[in-house]
């Protein structure tokens, strides 16, 4: 009995396996969509292929990489490109191989995200002069710090300090304790540029209103401040946030990608503390924390990637840097959402006026990390 059962089981297993294998080639031929990413071309979008290599944050980091990737998603929706390809780097050793794999895959444009990929991108660009590249958040410089463009790499950079200035002003106006705080993920220019702008925005408020709102966590003059050291240590991020709150800060501006969540959690726990999100509109990208998000400093990486992809697809690729500013809408601040009623009309009018003054050049916002 037992033996017979075993035999039957074995036979049916074989039959199942045979059936599964037998169907496969037919099905493969009948429906191309099983083949992988490239086959998406036939279903929607154009036939230009765009690829992206991220740093160690994944495609769904709710921040830096995700916003950049959304640029390619937009491009697909607008019919500019086929389904985009994406490679996530797990360690620093993966950048070169990932970029190279995309070169092998005959991508029309390869977008690399973040300064960590700068050398891998340069190497691939110089080895493949026919290939087109765009790099988010990095501009090649020579030994003196002057721009040193590469023929087939388009830098996509952002003067986020202009937008952070507005957020700093709004935060100073919002604060009742007279203390606001900021902290960063790592001390790199793309982070400190937010903190510079935020700091200056608060100082401008003090100047205009004769107020004395303090900024904790960053000193623009000495370029020293509070940093987690990476973009992954949620425990330390929470601790820094709690420390700032206990020192009296009632507005926090974390510049640390996914770690901003820790600040939002700390703010929710403390009550009466607001957060200024960075990169994307946190009210939409992190709705769980909508009730504490005063506003967000927007960095339009999606728009920049979309623009670069459009340019490459139209055969109009240049290595001219794309510099996101308040003027071209590449950076900005998000609506106040839940805080809309608590921000006075006076402040809103002043912000609109400051924005105009920055665009016209009447008011100059400076940062060591700014792009020209």
């Amino acid at each position: 009995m037992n033996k017979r059962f075993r035999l039957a089981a074995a036979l049916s297993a074989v039959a199942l396996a045979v059936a599964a294998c037998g169907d496969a080639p037919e099905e493969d031929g009948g429906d191309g969509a099983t083949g992988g990413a490239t086959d998406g071309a036939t279903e929607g979008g154009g036939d230009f292929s765009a690829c992206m290599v991220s740093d160690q944050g994944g495609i769904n980091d709710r921040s830096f990489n995700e916003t950049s990737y959304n640029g390619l998603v937009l491009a697909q929706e607008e019919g500019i490109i086929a389904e985009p390809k994406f490679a996530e780097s797990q360690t620093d050793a993966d950048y070169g191989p990932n970029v190279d794999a995309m070169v092998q895959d005959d991508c029309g444009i390869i977008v690399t995200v973040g300064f960590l990929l700068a050398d891998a991108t340069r190497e691939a660009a110089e080895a493949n002069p026919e290939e087109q590249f765009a790099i988010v958040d990095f501009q090649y410089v020579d030994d003196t710090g002057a721009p040193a463009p590469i023929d087939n790499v388009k830098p996509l950079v952002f003067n986020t300090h202009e937008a952070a200035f507005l957020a700093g002003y709004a935060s100073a106006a919002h604060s009742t304790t007279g203390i606001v705080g900021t902290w960063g993920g790592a001390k790199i220019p793309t982070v400190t540029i937010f903190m510079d702008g935020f700091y200056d925005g608060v100082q401008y408020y003090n100047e205009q209103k004769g107020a004395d709102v303090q900024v904790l966590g960053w000193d623009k003059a000495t370029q020293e401040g509070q940093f987690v050291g990476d973009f992954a240590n949620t425990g330390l991020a929470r601790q820094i946030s709690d420390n700032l709150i206990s020192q009296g800060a009632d507005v926090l501006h974390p510049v640390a990608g996914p770690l901003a969540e820790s600040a939002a959690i700390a703010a929710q726990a403390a009550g009466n503390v607001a957060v200024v999100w960075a990169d994307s509109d946190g009210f939409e990208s992190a709705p769980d924390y909508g009730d504490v998000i005063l506003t967000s400093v927007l960095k339009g990486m999606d728009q920049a990637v979309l623009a670069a992809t459009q340019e490459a697809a139209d055969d109009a690729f240049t290595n001219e840097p794309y510099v996101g500013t308040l003027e071209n809408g590449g950076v900005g601040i998000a609506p106040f959402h839940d805080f809309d009623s608590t921000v006075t009309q006076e402040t809103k009018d002043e912000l609109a006026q400051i924005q105009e003054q920055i665009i016209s050049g009447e008011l100059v916002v400076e940062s060591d990390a700014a792009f020209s």
Partner: protein
Amino acid sequence: MTDPKPPVDVAEEPPAPRQETFFQRFMRELTGGSILVTILSVVLALLIGAVLIAASDPDVQDRADYFFSRPGDTLSAAWSAISDAYGALFTGSIIDIDEYTVGRALRPLAETATNAAPLIAAGLGVALAFRAGLFNIGAEGQIILGAILAGYVGFGWHLPTGLHLIVGVLAGIVGGAVWGGVVGLLKARTGAHEVIVTIMLNYVARFLIAYLLTTTAFQRPGASNPVSPIVDDSAQLPRFFDDSRLHLGFVLVILAAFGVWWLLERSTMGFEFRAVGANPNAARTAGMSVSRTYVWVMLLAGGLAGLAGVMQVLGTERYLTSGISAGIGFDAITVALLGRASPWGTVAAGLLFGALRAGGVPMQASTGTPIDIIVVIQSLIVLFIAAPPLVRAIFRVPVRSAGQPVAGLQRGWGA
């Protein structure tokens, strides 16, 4: 699990499990396993990986909705997802027959070797420490120190061709050796546990390199991001082919593996290492200096990990970033476990992990399979190999026959 072996000479003596430390028992169980178990673990891990690939594939998910009306659809979609992914893994790590030139076709194999070289070097460091009864978790920090010194010689000094490379390589080895040697010294002098000390030193190394990359001595001129200058041509490990990144480091690492084998199996010092690893009290009674052994083992282990750092900075990457160690130091522990702490086993395990690292790249890029599958496969392999000995070590479960563990010990430690 292990096939019966004729009892060897000491099998008559009763094993003394109560005097063993937990670590010794675990290592004995681990190294006693057969090669068949290793191979089957890899196969099983790949099979589970296949299930995960199928389950995470959007096509398969779509078709699973009507699985019971037409199961063939789901199964064929699963089959093509798995075969595409593993096909890309293979062409990315072994050979790409679609390429036109021999150089391009064999490039994946070279990429595997490139990835394997630092894994093997650091894995040898971990394995060597295992054999002397030390758990070296600090390969990551030792790699970073090796990379810092080798890198600094590479871009900070400008020496004649030939000499520059030699000095750079030696500096890296010394960097790692010092970082490891400190651990051995602390253990020998104060009895500080090497696991704690190595983990702490990993953090010290990590923040040290992050700090150094903000100083003018290390930061690339003109750059505001934390990256070092590119090392001079004269300090770079020469590459063998135009088409690939395979460099001289791979040869160095095979020589290092031979050196470790010779040390352990043919030299007096290696005998002392193994004796201390098997039973420090017996070794001390026999007149060996246990503390001196600890210092030497950790110096050599650190030097080997430092060599891995050399390969990263002078071979593949050619500049320093704070992530230069790329998790190799932690994968090295896995590699050493998989290689059952033997030099050639470590080489084989390093090649396997190198292949998974190399093949994972095109697998992700061309089929969209999540790269995390590779980590899952690596982890499963280790789990299958290390878990049974670990469970037995924790609960002190005896292996089938009484003579068996001792036979395993004899074979495993290669006396």
